[in-house]
């Protein structure tokens, strides 16, 4: 009833190529954005700094992984490595370049990650599928190892950790969780919009052609070299920016080994459970993988209190999380984004199904 496209005509090319052609979608996105901006006025510090900031940041990283895996079809497992590049690049830029604004530093650290991404993307020209996934682990291990071994990256800190500098832009120190949240939100929103645009433009179509059948794409005149490396570069850019935000807006004190292979795996889970090749899915997947264990932890400790052995509770949480993943995949193998899509289809007909 509320979600109907009847009566909405596109009368010009500009209208035809809008990001959100449906009025309801535009209104929905606007409401979500406004709500997101106003959220800090109702959410407390815990929600902002422990839930929303990491969720947004990891959504961004998942988005990067999704570009590479979901759109370009290149299975990669090195996202945490590229996050590490971003985090350490941002630290060094702010440390070594006097008065560099935070946004510029973040953008440049994304570029650093992109360059590294191109180098480690080179094998993709010859290797495919699962083999490529394992091969990209080389980047994961090598990057963390290199950051660990060369003390210059950490400004010769005796313990080998970096402490993120304050976020300073326009002469203002964004120190409170609320301000940090807004910085993260702005960056993530802009990059998500950009990703959406890339995905539906010629760039994205190139990626999808390579994903669906690279030999055919090449026969049609698409340069595999360019397309694949472009996907690697852009994906690593997103991961790098995500890594910088992860360090500066969330963790604050970071060592290279915080960017473990487990984090890479987690990001992979987010993309698959969220839905391959969807922007929305990256956000939903990140939410599920990041927040569900926290929710289970809060819920079970709340229900069982201190009467049951906490080790049993923690283990039960793990089992339930696993069962949820399996059940969900059986119910909807294409991920959370597909559920959202189906809901929209239903909404379109509601309340008159037949």
């Amino acid at each position: 009833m509320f979600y109907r496209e009847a009566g909405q005509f596109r009368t010009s090319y500009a209208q035809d190529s809008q990001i959100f052609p449906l009025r309801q979608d535009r209104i929905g996105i606007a409401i979500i954005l406004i709500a997101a901006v106003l959220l800090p006025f109702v959410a407390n510090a815990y929600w902002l700094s422990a839930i929303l900031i990491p969720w947004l940041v990891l959504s961004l990283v998942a988005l990067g992984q999704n570009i590479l895996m979901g759109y370009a079809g290149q299975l990669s497992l090195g996202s945490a490595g590229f996050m590490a590049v971003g985090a350490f690049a941002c630290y060094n830029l702010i440390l070594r370049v006097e008065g560099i604004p935070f946004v510029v530093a973040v953008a440049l650290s994304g570029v650093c990650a992109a360059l590294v991404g191109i180098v480690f993307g080179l094998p993709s020209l010859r290797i495919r599928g699962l083999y490529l996934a394992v091969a990209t682990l080389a980047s994961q291990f090598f990057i963390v190892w290199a950051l660990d071994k060369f003390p210059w990256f950490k400004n010769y800190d005796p313990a080998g950790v970096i402490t993120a500098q304050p976020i300073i832009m326009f002469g203002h120190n964004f120190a409170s969780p609320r301000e940090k949240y807004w910085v993260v939100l702005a960056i993530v929103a802009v990059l998500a919009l950009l990703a959406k645009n890339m995905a539906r433009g010629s760039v994205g179509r190139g990626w999808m052609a390579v994903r669906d059948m690279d030999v055919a794409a090449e026969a049609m005149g698409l340069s595999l070299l360019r397309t694949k490396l472009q996907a690697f570069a852009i994906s690593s850019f997103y991961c790098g920016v995500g890594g910088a935000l992860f360090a500066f807006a969330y963790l604050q004190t970071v060592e290279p080994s915080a960017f473990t292979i487990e984090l890479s795996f987690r990001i992979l889970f987010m993309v698959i459970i969220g839905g391959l090749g969807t922007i929305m899915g990256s956000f939903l997947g990140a939410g599920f993988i990041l927040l569900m264990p926290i929710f289970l932890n809060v819920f079970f400790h709340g229900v069982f209190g201190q009467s049951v052995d906490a080790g049993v509770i923690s283990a039960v949480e793990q089992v339930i999380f696993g069962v949820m993943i399996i059940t969900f995949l059986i119910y909807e193998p294409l991920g959370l984004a597909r559920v959202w899509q189906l809901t929209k289809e239903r909404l379109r007909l509601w309340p008159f199904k037949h």
Partner: protein
Amino acid sequence: MSSKNILRRGLSGVAAAGAIMAAAIVSTPTMAQQPEQYFPVASMRVGPYNAMGTGIFGGVIDYLNYVNIKHGGVNGVKLVYEECETEYNAARSVECYQRLLNRGDQKMLLWDPYGTPLAYAVIGRVAADNVVLAQAGYGRTDAADGRVWPWVFGATANYWSQIAMKLNFIQQKEGGIDKMKGKTIVHLHIDTAYGREPLPAMRQIAKDWGVNLIEIPIAPPGLEQQSQWLQIRQAKADWVTFWGAGAGMSGTAITSAARVGFPRNKIIFVTFGGAEEDMIAGGAQAKDTHVVAMVLPGKQFPLIADIEKVLYSGGAGKGNMQNPARVGTIYYNRGVIAAVNYVEALRNAQRIHNKVGKPVTGAEFRDGYEALDYTSEARRKELGIDGMIPPYKLTCRNHEGAGTFHMMQWDGNKFQIVSKDWLGANDPKFIRQLIEDSAEKYAKENNITLRDCPN
């Protein structure tokens, strides 16, 4: 068999939950009278460090409950706690920190995450949040300087004191510092910040003594150490200071040493990777391995014996340990001592700020923690921990306290203490100087003005 086991535990869980919910509903109105003080418990009960997490935090929780049952709390203030699972993951522990920061109208007083990466993850936050970071023997070493880090406490010791104590022990075994010249010591460490933490002090001492120091890293999880031990064999090392984490890495180190025929009594384990669990993982080959102890294990101490009596004996079922046989082990005792520190600090805070019988704030608790004083034998005996920890007190400037340890040796079944007395660095002043230099450098780089400390 396994499924039966699960079923049994699961059922008991459901039953207990039901009982607790019923109890909660019945007793809520009457409970509000007694004042409460709330402590966070950031445990890791699943994952690779589950043995450590269950032991340490089992000890912490048991002591808090013991104080409630035995003494009715601290001057009538009941101790309550809230638990959160960190899985020894820095990102998750930050979430836990934020989640446990407030509970009802009370703010948490301290944070004790039991992991160096986890301590590093919050070290920048605690001052602003008025939370004491109690990193007992772990975490950032130069935070032992109370002038730069007022909110961080490392009692009873830190990593630099520990490595200095190891070297001191080696020196005594070899017959004096002059005999150390030309000896080869391998620092075999996990390839993380924690593994490299002792190196600044170690390099200095090695240079002064003319020791040939070789640093060999192991990438976590460290289930394969063949190449590391071959290098140790090639270098003809005299001693190995092992700085690992997790029972898998410890066990593999011991069996790999056996594979290359390296004598186990020349390996000295770090406190963190030196518990019964680590030795068990190494099997029969673990016999004679040296391990540094910060808190002594065993049930011979009156406090541990009494906790066992009050919480466990006769199926009292009030203890937190799933396996009661672990009461009195290294991890458990260390957890108990951590909680003894919490409670002593709370008691001090109540006294100093004239709030006896009332809950205290983070700032008041910090003052109480800084006033920790175990120098009186009578007080140690009263607490039932005499001999378990070294006598020490904290001051405004010194947040480390003792800096001394015992050396133990694994006899195949349990640890035997081999050092006569609490043993520290050969030259404690030198280590203290290193710490203060490092802290001052940090303060300078980050524009921190040093706190004025009388002592």
